[in-house]
């Protein structure tokens, strides 16, 4: 059934003010097929999704659903017509205060022609219908707040599916899922395909794309620049089309560690976990990789003084290091670029320079009074260094793209010299070009500090680090010099198949 295009887009344009975001997009989606849409940040992916889902209206161009023109004015209209969207932010799709059953029938509760009274038994019955059709193995009476992110997403998708949609848009659905959870999502996608749903799948993650794609479409600067459907799919071609340049394999000059800067001995970060010992040298970049939920963030935050280790000691430059708060960690020269910039990094009401100086206000102040000129100069230097796209250092952070926001949060910690710079998932939701800018800056500025990067994506670790440590079950299970990596061994360690601690 792969040949019938049930959704067609032709000549779609959209401009916001003077900025043309979409410049004539043409795209076909076919029943029972997963079309992966790739594009760098700012390429226009989200705008395209918003037009398809009725949030924005196109300036010009047509959309056809089946043989009928499709131009939804509201998300509800798009959904009724048969185009449903599952948004990136999982919690936007569910109501935490209600149980699973109510969530499954939520949009039916306020449809026209509904009675005034709420009949819990009927809700249960309808919900059970929906759940059974989707093979949803979740307790209908559970509160959504008690569910894992993956389960919440399953609920949101199941509800979307109860409308019998012809087209489903999944916008970075795995961005907060672990790989086990993602696998459940992929199984669900397979079921949707079998039912003849046309799926538009938006993602940055190569592993996802390899798993689900039937065809790949690359979007760049508001236009489709490549379509790939011949098997085997040309993934590299798709990436290159999306970037408009041939980045190829990133080979790095592996550096040896200088004098030891930081060491941890017998650090235990979770009950029942084996102790961690590690040593980081000046000038080297060490990546810690491992699946989601193996304790990477816990370790990062322990080194930064947010959590206390259960046992063990740390040393910084030969002196005991036992931070009680981020404040004391920063004072000792240990900085953390925390995971998930929206909640832990950026101050949305602040502009770029105010965001950059945030941890170092005393250094930018004279007797408590801020020296704005110095702040702005520092910010301007970082903007130039990291190629941050903005009008000036006084731009509000909310006006920047995700990649540029991430650059600002990283730049914040590069404005001052550190002894140990820790970065937790610094490439999250960042396009490849921005990722390369950040990685290059980290390597260039590595100097005599130690740098520790926590990365779930192995590709990113291979592309940035001199040394790679593997974490599993809250401890470090493997170590590799990034020159002649034994990929089989590394992957086995990631998968938790070797649990003895390797010494350095």
């Amino acid at each position, binding site marked *: 059934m792969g040949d019938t295009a049930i959704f067609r887009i032709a000549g779609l344009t959209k401009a*916001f*003010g*003077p*900025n043309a*975001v979409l410049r004539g997009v043409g795209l076909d989606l076919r029943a029972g097929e997963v079309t992966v849409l790739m594009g760098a*940040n*700012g390429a*226009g992916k*989200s*705008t395209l999704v*918003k037009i398809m889902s009725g949030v924005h209206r196109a300036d010009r161009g047509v959309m056809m659903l089946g043989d009928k023109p499709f131009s939804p004015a509201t998300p509800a209209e798009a959904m009724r017509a048969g185009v449903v969207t599952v*948004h*990136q*932010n999982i*919690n*936007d799709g569910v109501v935490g205060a209600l149980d699973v059953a109510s969530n499954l029938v939520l949009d039916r509760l306020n449809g026209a022609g509904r009675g005034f009274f709420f009949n819990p038994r009927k809700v249960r019955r309808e919900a059970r219908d929906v759940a059974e059709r989707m093979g949803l193995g979740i307790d209908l009476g559970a509160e959504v707040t008690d569910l894992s992110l993956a389960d919440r997403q399953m609920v949101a998708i199941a509800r979307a599916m109860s409308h019998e949609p012809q087209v489903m848009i999944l916008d970075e659905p795995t961005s907060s899922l672990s790989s086990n959870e993602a696998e459940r999502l992929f199984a669900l996608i397979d079921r949707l395909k079998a039912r003849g749903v046309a799926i538009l799948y938006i993602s940055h993650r190569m592993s996802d794309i390899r798993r689900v794609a039937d065809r790949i479409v690359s979007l760049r600067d508001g236009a489709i620049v490549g379509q790939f459907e011949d098997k085997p799919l040309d993934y590299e071609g798709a990436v290159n089309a999306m970037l408009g340049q041939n980045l190829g394999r990133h080979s790095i000059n592996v550096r040896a560690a200088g004098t030891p800067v930081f060491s941890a001995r017998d650090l235990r970060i979770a009950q029942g976990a084996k102790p961690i010992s590690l040593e980081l040298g000046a000038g080297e970049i060490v990546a810690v990789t491992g699946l989601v939920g193996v304790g990477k963030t816990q370790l990062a935050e322990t080194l*930064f003084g*947010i959590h206390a280790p259960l046992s063990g000691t740390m040393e910084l430059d030969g002196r005991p290091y036992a931070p009680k*708060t*981020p*404040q004391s*960690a*920063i*004072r000792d020269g240990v900085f*953390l670029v*925390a995971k998930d910039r*929206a*909640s*832990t*990094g*950026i*101050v*949305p*009401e*602040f502009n770029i320079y*105010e965001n950059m100086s*945030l*941890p170092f*206000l*005393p250094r*930018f*102040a004279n007797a*408590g*009074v*801020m020296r704005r000129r110095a702040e702005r100069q520092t910010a301007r230097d970082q903007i130039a260094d990291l190629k941050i*796209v903005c*009008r000036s250092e006084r731009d*509000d*952070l*909310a*006006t*920047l*793209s*995700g990649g*540029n*926001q991430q650059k600002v949060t990283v730049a*914040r910690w590069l404005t001052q010299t550190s002894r140990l710079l820790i970065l937790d998932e610094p490439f999250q*939701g960042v396009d490849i070009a921005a990722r390369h800018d950040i990685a290059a800056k980290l390597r260039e500025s590595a100097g005599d500090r130690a740098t520790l990067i926590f990365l779930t994506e192995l590709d990113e670790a291979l592309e940035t680090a001199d040394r790679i440590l593997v974490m599993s079950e809250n401890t470090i299970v493997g170590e590799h010099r990034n020159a002649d990596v034994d990929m089989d061994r590394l992957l086995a360690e990631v998968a938790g198949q070797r649990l003895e601690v390797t010494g350095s």
Partner: protein
Amino acid sequence: MDSQTARESTVEAKVDARPKEGLSMRELAIRYGFLTLLVGLIVFFSLATRGFTSPQAAVFILQSVSITGILALGVTATLVVGGFDLSIGSIATSSMMAAAYVMVVLEQNALVAVLVCLAIGALVGLINGLIICYMRVPDLLATLGMMFLLIGLQRIPTEGRSIATGMTLPDGSTAEGTFSQAFLALGRHRFDLFIENLVPASVVVLIVLAILIWFFLEYTRFGRMMYAVGSNARAAEFAGAPVKAYRIWAYVISGVFASIGGILLAARLGRGDIASGNNLLLDAVAAALIGFAVLGAAKPNAFGTAIGALFVGVLLQGLTMMNVPYYTQDFVKGAVLVIALIFTFALLGRNAR
């Protein structure tokens, strides 16, 4: 809403429709709308009434808003850290009663009275902050409870009566103390400014405190960090800020400002009147919230708060001079507040994206 805006912002990167230079009409309206309205009101009242433009009238307006203005500046500090302080009105009346009690019943001097009031303000603010930060009681509820508690507490020492010289005390004796002249001067003395006896002390206090808190919030690292705490507390914590300490300090500032308001109130009345100060809380909060709309800030700010208080004062004074009856005053204040809030959240909210 945070995650919503964060996601939007990643998307709308290229979508920023604002032209590089020059402001659109809408932006001009957002930025200068409220100030223009204030100037317009002043012009209107000076044409429509006699004597509105005299220095005495201007000073009268300032004096009428001085106490609420001081409370509003204090509550601005708690708004900045993302909190709220409903107890300011009762802190002010409690410190008024305390000042009267210290001078009339305990027969102490003005300095002791002032210090006791400031200590009460700081202590109540500290307790508010501790309850909110360490007992995790939501700010509105904690300060609502504190408000209730203080309203009751201030009546206990005198068994519910107002305090004035010559009153009968619970033990049957007569209170012999008096308000000291130095203390009363805080409410009644007028400084010379071009014209003799023009500017009341309370107006001077208002202006000094307004400049202090404005400078503190806008130009010091502590003020900057307080804004960061209010905007994204976790990010501030990860940037090394002692978030709880900043929150607690904000409530202490709010409490101290409220107690200063109470001192001025006592000095103006010359007695500890349990029936006064009922409107302080609402008026002060209104001024601070109206301040969101000034200069398109869309966030708590000291300058806006001062303008907000002034705006209400000008409007009420002008209407009074046009013989609008007094009982419409609360209606007018409420209407201004609602309009300012709509202005802030509808217009600015859309713009902020």
